[in-house]
């Protein structure tokens, strides 16, 4: 069944001004007469495509788009839509982290709950970065702009593995609701499902869809949870089946998607500061 949003997208498509398309066929045919190179035989296609891809990338900036053209669109805007959470409480069977008071988005120094770190955080087994990657098959995230991590953990107890890296509080990283912890940076397999947050965010939590710039320079989809959210949902197999997972620090959280991996950064940092950390996150070298 086609829903309202899908119909509205189709409406929008019909109303999109796509310019003077009537001249396009003539323009294309004129280009074909400019001495087009002979197409390579099929057996040489792969080599031809590889070379063509490099050439097209190189030419795109210099030939296709005139320098004098008005500024082209860019997609680096961070979304700012605030979603009012519905008064729905979600409970999980896994014990979340230390209980903490709600952390409003403007708060950078949350009250610290004494916790026996790391046991009460249920981080799994402390291992080295190499072993964490080997045990889980996941990228081991590193945030070079923060103080060196105080531990790398592999959580393989559940159906889906996680790698969790613990960062201590520092000048740039406020203390989290858990003593001795500034941030948790983790990876797991799956896909962030935004629909979940429209219905099941905790009271007092704001949700924003954000674009996250990665260290590789890609612009990927993300979700910002501002406040004391305890759970989030991911689509493990990418086929629409949701599973919930705990947010251990119950504080501000940035989720973003790289391929089939969900990155999660939990800290008391505000949104833009968390995005600034995300752009530095790389993968620990293996071996």
């Amino acid at each position: 069944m086609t829903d309202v949003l899908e119909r509205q997208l189709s409406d929008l498509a019909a109303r999109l001004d796509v310019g003077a398309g009537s001249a396009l066929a003539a323009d294309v045919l004129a280009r074909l007469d400019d001495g087009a190179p002979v197409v390579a035989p099929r057996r040489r296609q792969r080599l031809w495509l590889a070379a063509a891809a490099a050439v097209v990338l190189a030419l795109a900036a210099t030939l296709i788009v005139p320098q004098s053209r008005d500024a082209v669109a860019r997609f680096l805007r961070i979304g700012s839509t605030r979603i009012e959470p519905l008064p729905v409480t979600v409970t999980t069977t896994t014990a979340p982290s230390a209980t903490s008071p709600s952390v409003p988005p403007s708060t950078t120094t949350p009250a610290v709950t004494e916790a026996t770190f790391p046991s009460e955080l249920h981080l799994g087994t402390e291992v080295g970065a190499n072993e964490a990657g080997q045990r889980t098959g996941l990228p081991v995230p590193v945030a070079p702009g923060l103080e060196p991590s105080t531990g790398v953990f592999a959580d393989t107890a559940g159906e889906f593995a996680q790698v969790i890296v613990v960062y201590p509080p520092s000048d740039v990283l406020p203390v989290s609701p858990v003593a001795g912890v500034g941030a948790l940076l983790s990876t797991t397999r799956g896909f962030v499902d935004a629909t979940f947050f429209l219905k099941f965010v905790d009271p007092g939590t704001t949700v924003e869809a954000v674009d996250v710039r990665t260290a590789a320079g890609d612009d990927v989809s993300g979700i910002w949870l501002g406040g004391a959210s305890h759970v989030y949902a991911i689509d493990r197999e990418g086929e629409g089946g949701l599973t919930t997972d705990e947010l251990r620090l119950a504080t501000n959280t940035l989720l973003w998607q790289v391929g089939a991996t969900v990155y999660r950064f939990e800290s008391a940092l505000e949104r833009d500061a968390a995005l600034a950390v995300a752009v530095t996150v790389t993968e620990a070298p293996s071996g």
Partner: protein
Amino acid sequence: MDLTPVDDAELLRRACRGDRDAFGQIVAIHQIAALRLATIISGDSTEAYDIVQEAFVRAFRALPTIRSSEAIAPWLMRVVANEAKNTRRGAWRRDRRHQRHAALRPIVVAGPDEVALSDIDARALMRAVGALSERDRTIIGCRFFAGLSETETAAALDVAPGTVKSRTSRALGRLRVQLGDTMEVTS
């Protein structure tokens, strides 16, 4: 150019034999879908024209590589989408050098009164689409702007139909988050 209606397969056969008029008809048939898709991925309807023109030139030169069983529409949209992404990445690198950020600026023309989407909502929806990631815009663009079916989108993006379904669902979910309470989108 002869614009007598001919089906895609026949036009494709003629174009593969080097019939440029036949290819011109293919362009005429698919240009609107291609321009809409390029606009959604690139975010600029003027740039989309250049993208689609280049994509069709590349497509003509690559005609001998198309499989006989392959449908022309998804194949063309794949070329257009790839061209749009490559062009956008080139523009993005320039952006990073110049530290210039701007929002999506497509042109939305006024629609008839009976169209469900108001002008204000159309612009809000376009801004929300522009705030999605490139991958989300590509899947939304194929499905709703180029009008491809799930099967055709799967062929265009070289993924399984089930993947198209799940990616579309997730992209729509993120779009709903972007829209928030600015317009009514729930079914």
